[in-house]
């Protein structure tokens, strides 16, 4: 399972912390408040009960009034009920509503032993406090005080505290989210800078003043980019130097060799042969160097323009002496593509040269469209490419087996590697497969670049 992200974890910790803290606070407040309220209620109830017993019930009973009448004199309201135990039975103001059952036997027995008592009980009408006060032997005055209101108050309080705890938890989560966002913001700028560098913007640096806590990261990041930029610059300069140092003497060789080759017929046979060999080899070396330098130039993004690939293919075929009728555009396939014209031309030319060199010449150049990609296929009727060679054939200096067997020294061994590189520069891929009916099929797939068709600038 994937580990949750830093941000999620920090948020969870913040939320959990807030929950624990507020829950503890809420419980504590609830406990203290409920105890205080209950004690208060008990005191009040106690006072009321004693005053009822002392000033109303006891004098009335001494005046030999009936317990029912005595109880009727009490203004008990809604929150309390009074009972009298005398002669071994209960007397109540109203018919028994089950109230007597709520009076615990133990409490009554205690009162009959002349010990007043209080007990919290749960009655049919909710929680209550029962006071039992012995008035005379065998006579006990009992008052049942409802705690329902108190309970309701406490319920409301618990609800409020719960809501507060929930709210604080959410707040904690929000705070965690916000805090991580703030804390991760400098990292986001690091990520942006890294992305910029990956995209080739070597001027991207982090502002060391922006985040003092991240000084080390900022410094080492900037150092790293400096080094990278230096290295790339050094490589680039080296490549340019190599390019210049190779091209210049080759120019002399090429021109001088052509002077020699022109006179080869007039030289004696040995010298003439040698002159021709030099000229041929210089020409091949020239192509090799050009291809190698092209292959080394990987850093340049493609310069996309609209190219009529069908027309280009026909031109390239004609230039090589092939019939341009072999260029076929599948119905519905666009023949104007967004490509780097120079590289695309070289790519297609190399594929045609490859077909000529190893497959007896191209028999079809097909321009098609498949799954949102441009497709270009070059078919030949040669021996095809062995399945085990289909990957490696695009590596530099890998030559087709038949060519190697013949000791053919025509190609540079870089043609297909350049094809692969140019296709990759366009974000596409090239594959070698069998052509149905025999021969090789090289297929280039390049994702279509969607360009809004601009209105004619002028008309």
């Amino acid at each position, binding site marked *: 399972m994937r580990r949750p992200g830093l941000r999620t974890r920090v948020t969870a910790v913040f939320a959990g912390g807030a929950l624990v803290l507020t829950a503890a606070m809420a419980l504590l407040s609830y406990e203290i408040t409920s105890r205080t309220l209950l004690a208060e209620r008990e005191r009040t109830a106690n006072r009321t009960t004693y005053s009822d017993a002392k000033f109303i019930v006891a004098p009335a009973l001494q005046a030999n009034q009936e317990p029912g009448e005595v109880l009727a004199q009490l203004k008990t309201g809604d929150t309390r009920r009074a009972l009298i135990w005398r002669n071994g039975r209960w007397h109540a103001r109203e018919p028994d509503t089950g109230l007597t059952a709520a009076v615990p036997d133990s409490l009554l027995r205690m009162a009959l032993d002349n010990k007043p008592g209080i007990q919290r009980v749960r009655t049919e009408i909710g929680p209550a406090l029962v006071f039992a006060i012995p008035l005379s032997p065998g006579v006990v005055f009992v008052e049942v005080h409802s705690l329902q209101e108190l309970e309701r108050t406490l319920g409301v309080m618990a609800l409020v505290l719960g809501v507060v705890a929930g709210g604080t938890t959410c707040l904690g989560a929000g705070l965690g989210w916000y805090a991580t966002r703030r804390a991760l913001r400098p990292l986001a700028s690091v990520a942006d800078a890294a992305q910029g560098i990956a995209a080739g913007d070597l001027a991207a640096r982090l502002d060391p003043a922006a985040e003092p806590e991240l000084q080390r990261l900022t410094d080492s990041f900037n150092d790293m980019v400096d080094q990278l930029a230096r290295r790339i610059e050094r490589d680039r300069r080296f490549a340019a130097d190599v390019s210049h140092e190779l091209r*210049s003497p080759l120019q002399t060789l090429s021109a001088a060799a052509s*002077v020699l080759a022109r006179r080869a017929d007039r030289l004696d046979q040995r010298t003439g042969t040698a002159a021709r060999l030099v000229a041929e080899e210089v020409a091949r070396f020239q192509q090799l160097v050009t291809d190698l330098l092209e292959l080394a130039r990987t850093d340049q993004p493609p310069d996309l323009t609209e190219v009529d690939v069908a027309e280009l293919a026909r031109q390239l075929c004609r230039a090589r002496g092939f019939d341009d009728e072999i260029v076929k555009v599948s119905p519905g396939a666009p023949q104007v593509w967004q490509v780097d014209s*120079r590289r695309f031309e070289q790519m297609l030319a190399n594929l045609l040269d490859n077909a000529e060199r190893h497959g007896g010449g191209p028999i079809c150049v097909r321009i098609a469209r498949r799954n949102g990609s441009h497709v270009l296929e070059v078919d030949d009727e040669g021996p095809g490419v062995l399945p085990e060679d289909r990957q490696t054939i695009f590596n530099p200096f890998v030559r087709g087996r038949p060519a190697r067997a013949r000791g053919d020294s025509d190609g540079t061994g870089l043609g297909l590697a350049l094809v692969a590189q140019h296709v990759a520069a366009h974000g596409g891929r090239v594959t070698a497969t069998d052509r149905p009916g025999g021969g090789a099929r090289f297929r280039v797939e390049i994702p279509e670049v969607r360009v809004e068709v601009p209105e004619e600038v002028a008309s």
Partner: protein
Amino acid sequence: MDDWPVTSVLVIEDDDRIRLSLILALEDEGYSARGAATAEEGLTVHRTNPADAVVVDLMLPGLDGFECIRQLRRSSEVPIVVVSARDDTHDIVAALEAGADDYVVKPIAIKELSARLRAVQRRTRSTTPELATVTVGDLEIKPEAGEVRLRGELVPVTHTEFRLLCEFADQPGRVFSRQQLLQRVWDYEFGDERLVDVHVGRLRQKIEDDPSSPQRLLTVRGMGYKLQR
């Protein structure tokens, strides 16, 4: 092919071996070739005894190739072909903007250099005689006289610029693709489109009132260029 009188080529190249080999090879191709080791020497030679075409390297001691091209252009419409080991876009565009007609990268086979030179030569000699004077607004193109006039005033253009303008003037309003222009003007089967873009830019500098918002030589996005009728 070589049915023209011998043409003279000036090779401005600081590398003695390259210069010597190019002169030998160009003479084999039927040119009369001369060499100069620096831009200053080349400019002096060209002033006293103008060549029919100039081949110039970019990296030269003292005045560099770009400056050499600019100074040549100040007084001359001679066709200039750059032969350089530098092949990045920046250098190519800068050399063309300085006024070069074509650009090839070393090492170039002598046959190919010769073909490039013949192509620029053709531009200087052949206009399109059957084409009558074309007037587009206040722009006048006179192929037979090799003249371009804007509001009656003579506009100095190089041979390549003139040939390019003639292609447009032949069919005003028609859109030409860059590849079509490369074939018609430069004789490339398939060539570098930057040649066209830079030359169109150079023409605009000369025939547009505001080259940044052209009114005469228009870009048709995704298609090419056309001369506004």
